[in-house]
């Protein structure tokens, strides 16, 4: 293909958009009325959500028996979906926080959208621990509030750690997102002529006036939040992995679970973010802000994290053999050849084989190919959680306790509903708030920074 010149920096924002034009371009979706395509998309996501609501209503009324869960497979679709959605949330924080700490300018076009996806994904994920309780109205018991039961929550339980981790993650992501939104809301405040909108933007922009004395502290706080959000995101999926790894079940009790799960979360999260961004840049004409170079870099991250996941598979299998312990060895034989072999092999091909195609530059830069691979990755990662949870539970130490798991239509309806929930919020977001961070993008456009006086 064309040869790259390594002496030249790849521009982050392409084209010759002026700063003022950015304001117009990015705020346009919030001003214009939704068109037919939007309504079609919204009605699809709402119907999916509706299906989920039906499934949930039946679950609340009749109980968990509506699902396929049984003993020993007490966790199935519910926790698979939970881990899946929490994982998707991690891409957003990684893009906002970790890429910020690594000073990767290409994150500016996508960070706002990705953070929004994080928040919606975490909201979706948070539904599952509550609905999978037999008595979900008692979910408040998970918090250590002073009570008359003479009982505190069990702080040694990873399920309690989950409560703290996911709520902290949601809160901090929301704060991080909001802090980033303040300057953009101020831009909208200055531009809007609609009286009601002006009041709303005025309130939520807190009267931000672009003062450099404020920018100085703002930058520091952004750095601190990014510095906190990075270990936070690692800790959240680590704690989710602890749900499994602290047990003694073969296939679950494995010390590599924390980094393995985190890598897998970033992997699936980036795949979905990449897929959604491909749609967004097309629909809103942001191709010069969310450039092909940005997408290519995201694919490199997908390749990296996919390789980490592949490494984890290999290491787990090797050590299971190395341990010499028969139930450990059996877990992996069972996964590959047992009743869930189809799910296992889908997982391996989607997670290990397809992402490795991203070694090839042509595939990294092809929109169609990367979109397809992104979908495969998501399917594969959902399968991975399913395989881990269900195979280890359905066949553990005692063969007389083995039992197969079959999902019911209610299980599927809730899964579909979760996608509907997520996409509905996403669609509403694209019309209510700027999906690209206006201030950050302006700061990295060529010529936007002073050229003198920066010698250290």
């Amino acid at each position, binding site marked *: 293909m064309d040869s790259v010149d390594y002496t030249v920096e790849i521009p982050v924002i392409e084209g010759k958009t002026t700063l003022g034009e950015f304001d117009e371009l990015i705020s346009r979706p919030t001003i214009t009325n939704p068109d037919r395509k939007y309504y079609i998309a919204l009605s699809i996501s709402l119907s999916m959500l509706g299906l989920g609501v039906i499934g949930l209503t039946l679950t609340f009324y009749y109980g968990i028996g509506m699902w396929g869960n049984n003993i020993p497979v007490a966790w199935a679709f519910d926790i698979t979906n939970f881990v899946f959605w929490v994982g998707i949330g991690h891409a957003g924080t990684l893009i906002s926080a970790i890429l910020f700490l690594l000073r990767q300018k290409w994150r500016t076009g996508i960070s706002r959208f990705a953070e929004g996806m994080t928040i919606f994904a975490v909201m979706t994920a948070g539904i599952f621990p509550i609905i999978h309780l037999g008595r979900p109205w008692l979910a408040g018991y998970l918090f250590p509030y002073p009570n008359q039961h003479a009982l505190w929550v069990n702080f040694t339980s990873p399920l309690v750690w989950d409560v703290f981790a996911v709520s902290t993650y949601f809160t901090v992501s929301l704060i991080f997102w909001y802090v980033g939104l303040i300057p953009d809301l101020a831009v909208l405040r200055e531009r809007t002529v609609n009286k009601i909108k002006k009041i709303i933007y005025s309130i939520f922009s807190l009267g931000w006036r672009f003062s450099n004395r404020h920018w100085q502290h703002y930058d520091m706080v952004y750095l601190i939040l990014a510095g906190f959000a990075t270990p936070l995101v690692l800790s959240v999926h680590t704690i989710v992995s*602890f749900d499994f790894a602290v047990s003694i079940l073969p296939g679950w009790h494995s010390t590599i679970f924390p980094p393995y799960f985190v890598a897998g979360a970033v992997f699936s999260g980036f795949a979905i973010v990449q897929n959604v961004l491909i749609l967004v840049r097309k629909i809103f004409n942001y191709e010069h802000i969310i450039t092909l170079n940005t997408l290519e870099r995201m694919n490199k991250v997908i390749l990296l994290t996919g390789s980490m996941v592949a490494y984890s598979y290999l290491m787990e299998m090797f050590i299971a*053999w190395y341990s010499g312990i028969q139930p450990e060895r059996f877990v992996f034989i069972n996964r590959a050849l047992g009743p869930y072999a189809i799910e296992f092999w889908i997982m391996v091909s989607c997670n290990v084989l397809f992402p490795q195609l991203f070694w090839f530059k042509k595939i990294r830069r092809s929109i169609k190919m990367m979109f397809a691979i992104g979908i495969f990755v998501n399917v594969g990662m959902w399968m991975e959680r399913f395989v881990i949870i269900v195979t280890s539970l359905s066949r553990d130490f005692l063969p007389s306790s083995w039992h197969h798991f079959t999902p019911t239509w209610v299980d599927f309806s809730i899964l579909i509903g979760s996608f509907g929930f997520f996409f509905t919020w996403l669609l509403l977001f694209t019309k209510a708030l700027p999906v690209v961070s206006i201030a950050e993008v302006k700061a990295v456009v060529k010529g936007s920074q002073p050229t003198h006086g920066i010698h250290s």
Partner: protein
Amino acid sequence: MSKSIEYVKKELPHEIKTIGYVLLITGFIIVILGYMTDITRSLYNNIIGFTFLVSIGVGSLFFVSLEYIAGAVWSTPFRRIIEFLSSIIVILPLIVLPLLLNVNTIFGWTHPADSLMKAKAPYLNINFFIVRVIVFWLFWVGFYFLIMKNSVKQDRTKDQFLTKANIKLAGIFMPVFAVTISLAAIDWLMSLAPKWFSTIFGVYYFSGTVLAALATGTIFIVLLNERGYLTSGLKRDHYYSLGALLFAFINFWAYIAFSQFLLIWYGNLPEETVWFLARWHGDWKLFSIGLLVIHFVVPYFGLLSQPSKMNPKTLLIMSCWILFAHYIDLYWLVMPNFYKEGIIFGWIELGFPILIAGIIILVFYYRASRTNLVAIGDPKLERGVDFRL
């Protein structure tokens, strides 16, 4: 924007060579005496020394590859220094030789007693073990030569194609590195307790490797830059990035170490807890707590603030400390298999650290005398020098 980077090749002072030789010979004598006095103890120290050098050598090669594959520019001005450190790979056979000659003494799995050990025999047997050691070294030294050759050639030809070639090599090296470093850790460190296993062990050794390579590189970079040898001149921004990476990997090491500990503590399975219990017995209890303080608490607060990450003196001190911490980490991994009652420390333990210090200094000196200290032909060099946060 095309200002040429002026690089004036300065000779490193001869005192360095002298210091290097003094350390090398002193260390060597102590090691020989140690072998004559207590073979088993020396062998265990040898393992620590060997894995320490592998960390620095192969870790440095990992860094070089990482820069190529990530397309980073901030590290280009000092990449050559890291390349010199990866030359350590070449002399690894000398350090591993005494170990290969005494495999039976070091490793319990050479005499498999029960069915569990026999089940591991397809992997843990002397022949396959030696084959692995050789093959891994061949991989490492092979990639080292190829990547190094291209990088040095580029000094003369300034051919961008060489960068592209190195990126490809780096891409292939990464999975090779992941597998070989993990298996090396399992072979040399985990199999000392052959009935114990942990899937995260390879990652644990990797986290220490990255730290060791980074710290050693930082020491040389700071010393050379502050004395003007890198005439391209590194700025606070470069130092900050080095400091931030060190800080990040301190946290990563602590995260991996804690994950491993927590899961084994929580599951409470006797076949797994035995390893940690050995490190909580007698003196080892204090040592384990000390490891946490030395390897995490001190460097964490030492590198937390922004100014500290940019300050060359702080970076130098913290890098030396982190190297020391890594040695302590390896000691903690290896020695409890040998001496169960507590910490064993005497003149024998000093042999390998002194020897290693001499090796690193001399390897660096000789490379620096024949090659430029800066990769003057690299197309990214100018962007790297201009790098600002």
